[in-house]
Each structure stands twice: as structure tokens, then as C-alpha cells.
């Protein structure tokens, strides 16, 4: 068994120290780098915390739209990308609305790790 606190907790705590204790005492030219480090730690922390359930729901949405496939990852996305490019998901097609919702779900999940502020004020 691994010791606690675990990776996500350690990152969160270290990030707080960086932002609240170190950053105010750094010279101005180094603050940008310190903020980048805090940003990277935040992404890593959220990625660790991104539950399998959430990742699963994005994949489930993909399968609802496209049917189950042997490969829940890039292979299905690649097919979807191709279908979109060739007009098979255009407005007016049967799958259009489902695909639009799927892309929202997929992007919401990705934003929740990489760029949660993008989602502020959205449903």
C-alpha cells in the first residue's frame, strides 16, 4: 500500500505553497515561470483526479453516437472525424444532434482537466 497523502493531494498542497508563499517573494521576471509551474501542477492534479467514471461517460457518449467499437479510444474518434469531414454528420442528418451533444461531452471532459476556466458560466 502506498503512503498517504497521495499524488493529487501532494500536488495541491505544493501548488498552494508555490502560489501563496513563494510567488509574492519572487522578482517580477520570474513570476511568469512560477505561474506556469503552478498551472502545470494544477493540470497534473486534475488529471490524477479525473475519475474513471467521467472518462467512461465521455466514451459511453461516443458509443451511443457511433455504436460500440473494438477500440474505445482514438480509433472511434478517427472514424468520427472522418465522418464529419465527409458530411455524414452534417446538419439535417439523423446523427447530427447526437454528435453535437457527444462533442460537448467529450470537450467538457477534456476542459475539466486542461482548462476548467473555459467552462465557467456554462451548463
Amino acid at each position, binding site marked *: 500500500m502506498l503512503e498517504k497523502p497521495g499524488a493529487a493531494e501532494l500536488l495541491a498542497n505544493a501548488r498552494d505553497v508555490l502560489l501563496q508563499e513563494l510567488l509574492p517573494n519572487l522578482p517580477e521576471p520570474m513570476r511568469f515561470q512560477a505561474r506556469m509551474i503552478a498551472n502545470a501542477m494544477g493540470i497534473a492534479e486534475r488529471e490524477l483526479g479525473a475519475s474513471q467514471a467521467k472518462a467512461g461517460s465521455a466514451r459511453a457518449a461516443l458509443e451511443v453516437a457511433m455504436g460500440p467499437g473494438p477500440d474505445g479510444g482514438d480509433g472511434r474518434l*478517427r472514424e*468520427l*472525424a472522418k465522418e464529419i469531414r465527409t458530411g455524414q454528420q452534417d446538419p439535417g442528418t439523423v446523427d447530427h444532434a447526437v*454528435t453535437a451533444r457527444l462533442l460537448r461531452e467529450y470537450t467538457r471532459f477534456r476542459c475539466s482537466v486542461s482548462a476548467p476556466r473555459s467552462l465557467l458560466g456554462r451548463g
Partner: protein
Amino acid sequence: MDEALLTDWLRQASGHAALTIRARELLTGGAIQQNWALQVAWPGGQEDWVLRTDSAAVLAVSLPRRAEFALLQVAYAAGVTVPEPLFLCDDLSVTGAPFFVMRRVAGITAGHRLVKSDSLGGGRAALVRRLGQELARIHTIRPPQPKLGFLGVPPVDACLAFIANSRAALDRQRAPRPVLEWGLRHLELNAPEPLPPVLCHNDFRTGNLMVTEQALTAVLDWEFAAWGEPHADLGWLCAPCWRFGNHLREVGGIGDRADLYAGYEAGSGQVVDPERVRWWELAATIRWALIAIDQAERFLSGTECSLELALTGHLVPGLEWNILDMVEAAHA
């Protein structure tokens, strides 16, 4: 940099045989370019210049400096607010890399400061109007231009060319990007008719605009310039990704569209088509996402171990969110 060699070269280029370099300071230095502030003097005169050069790592690519110098010359001659280009040096024996010298211009470029200030550049409305006029001035530069031969032949249809180039870029990537495809398909289905080509700056945005309290003092970073459609520059400036958090100010986080369009129309005599601007705004967001993917790839491939490049890749989901918003708004 051997200052004696540089001084000799500057004496010849400027015609001031007694020129001396009084001060030299690195303004910005990145992996690709460096900008040095030079204070030079000669009997009876003193000037502030900027020397822009390639870093040693990219010596093989000498065209960008020469091309950028030519673009500055053409823009300056057309009355665009750019630093006056002075001298170009292709001779590697002087500093070890190609460089050019331009007159130094006062001001700041920092986007996060600009979007927070109600007074910089003469105030939000005045500055945004001026940006419109400035773009109109850039767009007076039309092909053919003998000095800009390196730009090649203008695309017959800039909109369709954008879509084709973006898809080719996607096909070079390792991961599928269905949201970018979604945006591109929307653009394809709604592409407007082509317009006569003009010179587009292609990176005219907050962060590349130098301002003082009173006014715009320089439009910088011309390395993406190309023949294109005038609304492309307006769309790039209005894209959500250049608002530095000030989302309610749709023109680069600085001001309002009405002022930008009014400035552009006053400067060009052409009516701005807001639908075309929206088209190019979506295109801009896709383009920036493609650039961000490329930058992350430079990190992932081990070419450059830069935290900034690594983090740029994480901008992509937020840009994709914007793309979905824009497509949805267009359908509403």
C-alpha cells in the same frame, strides 16, 4: 556578438563613419528570435534602434529575417504604423546570424495590461477605432508587389484555401481532432464568395500591438503575413482566444466591434461584413488550436524541452469549447 564587427557594419550601412554603440541590451530573447536595443551615437546625433536577429539554433532559416524586413519596408511605405526598417544584413560574418535594424519605438505590448487599462492607447474606443484604420491601411497593400515575391501567388479563394490547409495540417497529426473537423466542416458549408486578395498581417492581435498612453505606436510580428481576405485579420483580432480574460470586450479584450468596424470602414471605404468576420473568427480559433497542437508536438517529440510549449497544448480543449460555441451560435 562581436561589437567591433557590428559597429563597423553599422558605420557602413548608416553612412555615419564615426558611429559608436553606446549601449546594447537584450530586450526579448527566445529560441527563435532575439531583439537587442541599441543606443547609437555619432558626432551631432544619437538614435535608439532595435536589432532583430535569429538565434544561433535556426541559422539555416535566413529567409524569415529578410522577408520580415521586406514586409516592414512595404508596410512602412504604405503608411502602416510600424518601426521604420533601416538596414538588413545577410552576411553571417558580422554577428553570426542574419539580422535587421529598425528604429526603436516607445510603448508596451503586454496583453494582460492592455486589456485592464481604460486609458492606454488613448482609451478603449479610440484605440479600437485606430486598430480598424490600421488594418484598413495594411489592406491597401495588394498584389503584385515585387518586394514581396516570397509570398507567392495569392489563393484564388482564401476561405477554401484555409480549410484545405487546415485539413492537411490535421492529417499530419497523430491524434484525431473531431471538434476541429466539426468547425472546419461548418466553415466549408458556409464559405462566402471570394474577395480580391490583400496583404493580411495574420497575427494582428493584443500582444503584438505596441501602445503608449496616447496611441498605437507599432504593429509588430509580421512573420505570418500572407495574401488573403481582409476579414481574416478582423476575425483574428476578435477571436475569443486573444481577449486575455476580458471576454466582454470582443475586440482583443480591448473594446467593441462597432468601433473596430467604424474605424475600418472610415479607413478603407469598404463595408465590413459581420458574417464574414464571424466566419474568420471561427477560422482563427481553429488556426490557433492547430498552432497550439504543433507547439505541444515540439515538446512531445523531444525537440524542445519547454514548459511553455507543453502547456500550450493544454489550451486546445478550451479552444475546442469555443469552436463548439461558435458553431452552435451560427446554427441558432
